[in-house]
């Protein structure tokens, strides 16, 4: 649906040339919710603005639904933009227009008849649950309601793509959830392709299928949300994920020397990650029974990434050296992620 090929963007600022984007390649498939996450200044805002040419890339090609956007002139671009909806962090509603008139705005631009506008707006108001607020002005609405108006306005022209520029960053967690829910429903119901940028991993976790991590104007990591969450490669990604899933060792390990190879009289510390069905399997208890070892859980959590269960457990195994090795190879045969943290001397054991 959307392809970005080696997109570069440079600005002339007072302190010289700024490279906001340094060659971005991305492909967003039809019907996908694609999340781009990055810290402020990473270039994510510039990137999303390059998709609908609010900022023209200095180099590279943007193709949406087969149409090369970088080759269009201003007039053609305006026509094509009508097929792309966009919502914003600060909603950007017209304060002088009512809710109804705000949603009607893109339809006026598309030269729809009064009747068409009325039918369409009433339908959209219902979709976002604001039918009773149609004659109010944005100033009378809450943040969540304003964003709903923003979404209705973005959907008015039946777009193929919806771009979300930090759409929930100005909202409280509860409202964020309801807005994300609405976006998810729209995605499902209309098969609308959604590209969103955010600095909140929670947003990615809630609704995205694909995620790309942007840093310093480059995509440093990209993939299915589940894969990136369970096997993050880059440090920045790990940091983002740690805001939701704790991948760090508990503080009690700070003073203990971990050994990568077995040492005499030591306990083994492993991190297990479960995805999907393996969460339902009683791995730990059957391992304990089979190999006559003890297992203490040091840290654990189970979470959902959309509909997939996902959990991590940090366990300390103690027992005969041979039994430990057998247990380890048993774990390796199961359908779960396993990461050997190291061996700790038994006297330094942290397990209770």
């Amino acid at each position, binding site marked *: 649906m959307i392809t970005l090929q080696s997109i570069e963007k440079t600005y002339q600022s007072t302190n010289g040339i700024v490279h906001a984007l340094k060659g971005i390649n991305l492909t967003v498939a039809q019907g996908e919710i694609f999340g781009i996450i990055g810290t402020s200044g990473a270039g994510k805002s510039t990137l999303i603005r390059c998709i609908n040419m609010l900022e023209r890339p200095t180099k590279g090609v943007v193709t949406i639904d087969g149409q090369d956007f970088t080759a269009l002139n201003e007039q053609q671009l305006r026509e094509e933009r009508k097929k792309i909806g966009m919502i914003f962090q600060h909603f*950007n509603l*017209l304060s*002088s227009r009512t809710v109804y008139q705000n949603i009607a705005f893109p339809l006026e*631009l*598309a030269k729809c008849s009064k009747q068409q506008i009325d039918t369409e707006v009433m339908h959209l108001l219902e979709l976002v649950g604001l039918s009773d607020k149609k004659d109010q002005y944005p*100033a009378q609405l809450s943040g969540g309601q304003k964003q709903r108006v923003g979404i209705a306005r973005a959907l008015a022209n039946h777009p193929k793509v919806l771009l979300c520029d930090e759409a929930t960053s100005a909202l409280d967690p509860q409202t964020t959830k309801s807005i994300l829910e609405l976006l998810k429903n729209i995605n499902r119901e209309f098969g609308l392709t959604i590209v969103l940028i955010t600095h909140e991993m929670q947003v990615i976790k809630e609704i995205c299928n694909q995620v790309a991590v942007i840093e310093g104007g480059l995509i440093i990591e990209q993939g299915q949300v589940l894969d990136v969450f369970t096997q993050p490669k880059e440090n920045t990604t790990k940091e983002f994920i740690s805001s939701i899933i704790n991948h760090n060792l508990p503080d009690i390990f700070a003073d203990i020397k971990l050994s990568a190879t077995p040492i005499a009289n030591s306990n083994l510390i492993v991190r297990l990650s479960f995805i999907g069905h393996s969460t339902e399997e009683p791995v730990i208890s059957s391992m304990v029974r089979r190999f006559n070892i003890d297992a203490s859980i040091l840290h654990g959590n189970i979470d959902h990434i959309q509909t997939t269960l996902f959990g991590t457990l940090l366990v300390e195994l103690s027992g005969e050296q041979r039994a430990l090795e057998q247990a380890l190879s048993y774990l390796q045969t199961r359908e779960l992620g396993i990461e050997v943290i190291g061996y700790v001397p038994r006297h330094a054991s942290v397990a209770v």
Partner: protein
Amino acid sequence: MSQDMLALLFKSLWETTYMVAVSGIISAFIGIPLGIILVTTDKGHILENIPINKVLGVIINATRSTPFIILMVAIIPLTRLIVGTSIGTNAAIVPLCIAAIPFVARIVESALKEVDYGVIEAAQAMGASPLEIIKKVLIPEALPAIILGLTLTIISLIGYSAMAGAIGGGGLGDLAIRYGYQRFRADIMLITVIILIGQVQIVQSTGDYLARRLNKK
């Protein structure tokens, strides 16, 4: 107060109102578009054009830095060209406009600059053309501020029009100078001042009311 004096007062009141109204309308019609050009041709705006922006800015500043009484006399040839004469109420309208147009332009400029650029960007993202952005976004969003700016312009024009007597333009200010001051008629002076205060008061209240009605923020 004599019948003649009263007639004179009414005549002057009419002259002031006429001069201010006509020059107010003309300067709004020319000043508002100029203000829009000033904003939209600025760096990074929808119709960025730095040369036009700079030239217009310089012209506006030049006009605004000339004291009104000097401007009035300096442009007499232009006034004669437009109105056919350099004396009288109609002749006074020309310098009043020349003084008010750049004033309106600057006021409209600052009103439009207050419009959040995010809203303009949203309109662009919806495929609005620059003209549509001006008509449907910039002007409606800035309307309360523009109304207040025009109110200020009209009040300034009432003040300027007092100097129109210098070229035979008449009006309340002229009456106050010729009768109140030069003929020691304190009563005339007092009445004209009271009427001027009343006029300004009415204009300001009307402007405030309209701006409040239109402001949905």
